[in-house]
């Protein structure tokens, strides 16, 4: 009779170039694992992956559509990574996205008499505030009463999603079409097209700008230092004089605000009105993207683009090879698991012990 027990011990972190390679290895390994499913369906994985990437990158149309889809993914990825840097486990980007969209739509349908630049700015601010406030609630509960952040942020997604549905089927129901959707927001509140005759809008530029801003905050400011120290070891940070509760609350509000911007971008850049299925899970994809991007803003940017390729190309692959488009979700899921497993393996030493 022998029992096996595992023990995890922190090991010396691998060098930076190795950490840069890790996401690439994770992508390759996850594609390899995904091909098992394709083989089970008796499809050639190479053909399938060819159409997957061709459908996401191969044509000008596909490429531009990929940028449209990448916009909310960059934002939710950045949002989640800010919170995760402080070891605040914000699983609530999806709800914060809807909260941002809700408040931005409200501002947008008031038809204020504002010139375009100012109205767009107002809608952006409204969205940031909406997401930020929705994220503040669980962060305050965590800081003040130690309520588990994973549980509250996750459950608050459902509250917000159903609240939006309720509003759309109730007071905000479109009086003309009678669909459960809001009326269109004011012309002046809409994001400009970035490239003519495509759906790419300035939201993409805003998302990229946010990447730079967040990088600057994290690496250059006192606030970023406080968030990183809090995340690296809250107990030590507190002992050393960092106000860890403040760091957690600020990180969570920034995180929720940026997630709210993803909602703004979908409403003001793509749909021009609020719908109940505004996001096909961008908030959850944000978690995968943040991890794959190693919580580094530029890593997140590339991870978001990669996932956008997969999401966009899945339709083409599905049609050309004859497999369900859900394979894109499968690849996402596997990538997360592979990345997490790699982080575990490279940051911890696993010692296996055979007990008596």
């Amino acid at each position, binding site marked *: 009779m022998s029992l096996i027990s595992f023990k995890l011990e*922190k090991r*010396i972190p691998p060098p930076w170039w190795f950490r840069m390679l890790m996401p690439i290895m994770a992508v390759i390994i996850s594609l390899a694992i995904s091909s098992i499913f394709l083989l089970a369906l008796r499809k050639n994985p190479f053909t399938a992956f060819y159409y997957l990437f061709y459908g996401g990158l191969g044509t000008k149309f596909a490429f531009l559509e990929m940028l449209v889809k990448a916009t909310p993914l960059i934002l939710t990825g950045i949002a989640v990574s800010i919170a995760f840097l402080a070891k605040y486990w914000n699983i609530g980007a999806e709800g914060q996205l809807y909260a941002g969209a809700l408040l931005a739509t409200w501002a947008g349908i008031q038809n204020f008499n504002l010139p375009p630049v100012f109205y767009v700015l107002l809608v952006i601010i409204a969205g940031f505030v909406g997401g930020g406030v929705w994220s503040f609630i669980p962060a305050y509960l965590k800081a003040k009463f130690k309520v588990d952040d994973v549980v509250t942020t996750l459950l608050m997604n459902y509250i917000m999603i159903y609240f939006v549905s309720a509003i759309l089927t109730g007071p905000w129901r479109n009086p003309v079409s009678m669909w459960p959707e809001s009326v269109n927001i004011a012309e002046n509140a809409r994001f400009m097209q970035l490239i003519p005759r495509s759906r790419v809008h300035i939201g993409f530029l805003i998302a990229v700008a946010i990447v730079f801003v967040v990088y600057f905050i994290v690496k250059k*400011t*006192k606030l970023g230092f406080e968030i990183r120290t809090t995340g690296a070891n809250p*107990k030590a*940070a507190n*002992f050393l004089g960092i106000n860890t509760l403040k760091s957690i609350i600020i990180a969570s509000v920034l995180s929720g605000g940026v997630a709210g911007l993803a909602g703004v971008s979908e409403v003001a850049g793509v749909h021009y009105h609020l719908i109940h299925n505004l996001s096909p899970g961008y908030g959850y994809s944000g978690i995968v993207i943040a991890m794959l991007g190693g919580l580094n803003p530029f890593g997140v940017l590339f991870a978001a683009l990669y996932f956008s390729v997969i999401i966009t190309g899945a339709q083409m692959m599905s049609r050309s090879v004859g497999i369900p488009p859900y394979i894109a979700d499968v690849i996402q899921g596997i990538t997360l698991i592979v990345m997490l497993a790699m982080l575990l393996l490279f940051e911890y*030493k696993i010692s296996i012990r055979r007990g*008596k």
Partner: protein
Amino acid sequence: MEKIVEMQNIRKTFLHTVANNDIDFDIYKGEVVTLLGENGAGKTTLMKILYGMYSMDSGEIYVKGKKVDIESPKDAISLGIGMVHQHFTLVKSFTVTENVILGLPPSKGIEIDLESAKKDLISLSKKYGLEVNPDAKIWQLSVGEKQRVEIIKALYRNIDVLILDEPTAVLTPQEAENLFDTLRLLIKEGKSIVFISHKLREVMEISDRIVILRNGSLAGEKNKKDTTKKELARLMVGREVLEIVEKEEIPKKGEPLLVVQNLHALNDKGIEALRGISFEVRSEEILGIAGVSGNGQRELENVLCGVRENTDGRIVFKGKEITGKKPKEIINLGIGRVPEDRMEEGLILDLPVFENLVIESYDKKPLSSGILINYSSVKDFAERTVKEYDIKTPSIYTITRTLSGGNLQKVILARMLSRNPEFIIASQPIRGLDVGAAEYIHTKLLSARANGVGILLISEDLDEVLMLSDRILVMYEGEVMGILDREDITIEKLGLMMTGARIGGLHEPN
């Protein structure tokens, strides 16, 4: 003499470090053999291999002349080898008797015969002077009693070889004396003792033979009668050791810097751990706090450092009340802190060295301006500090986790001293450090004292307290047993106070 155990060419590596480098080690019948070495020299690893807790990479073990494979502690015990670890392996909610028979097959069919076990246990404890109540629950026992239970547990299994891993680390001097009496009775009976230690005084008192390990390799073997403490110390660290750091006498003490009055606080379990502590520390003075660990020292450190709330009493620094202040406020008042838990409180191990060096001062000019951290001056500061305090690190960008224990402590010390504190709270400043690093830390503390800094030194290392302190306060169960001037102190007095005797000459302010 007869060899009971022979260990030959034992090799064990962990990742990249060689913990045991082809070590030969024998145990003879009826002797106390000491494994002497600094922390990390490989003593415990070698014994855990013998006890079946680690597997060796290569080597051979013979017990009573026969080659054996020891794969688990169970195998070791059946070969007559028992071990008492530094961290006890007792079930807290069970009684002493239950713990002693735990894991043994029941004596009568499937029924456990607690009564006869208890009888055996009482006779064992009488015979060897291991006083303990067989019906007490483990959680009710003191550390010394728990250790006695561990020893009885081993003896109950009829072992011939008893391994004790730093047994005196948790004991008062009197308890240690009692333990040694027990050990002497055991060797008279022909049992063999392996004593793991790095305390030379004890080693010279109890051993017959001393085997010295250094950095995982055999550094020497001496019979007690042919050696001296000085020679052992040299073998242990590999160079001559300056035993005593020169302490300059400062006859006239300055003004009271820190005054603590009637301090009360709870521990993590909500039990009162500080019960009315009062003392004062003057400038140019080191007040040492001695006591067996777990008597409230940690809670006292926490309260003074601002990470634990007190339930009563007050703390006054330079005439101003600072009770209940947050860590940041305490840092900004000019109080430097060397926490007991340097890995989990003193440093953020996953950040690079330069960020750890500024974590208490990053928000001050010139290291930052406005909302920005001025990383070029942070890096300049870090480069200078690493040089000044001789911190051995490949670069200031190195992840702090990779530094050795002594250098980790130097980072903490450098960070604190670079802010020119007026008062220092140092808790276990040299625990686990090698002699060279310890000497460095002590020199720095003494030079701070010479510059007028008041220091509160909390330590379980009596030698350290005796060497550095101007006055010594002894804590026992959250209370002050007495505060003595250095000249009035003897080891015996300290030992009595550490077990709860109040001794006159109190200098408590009230």
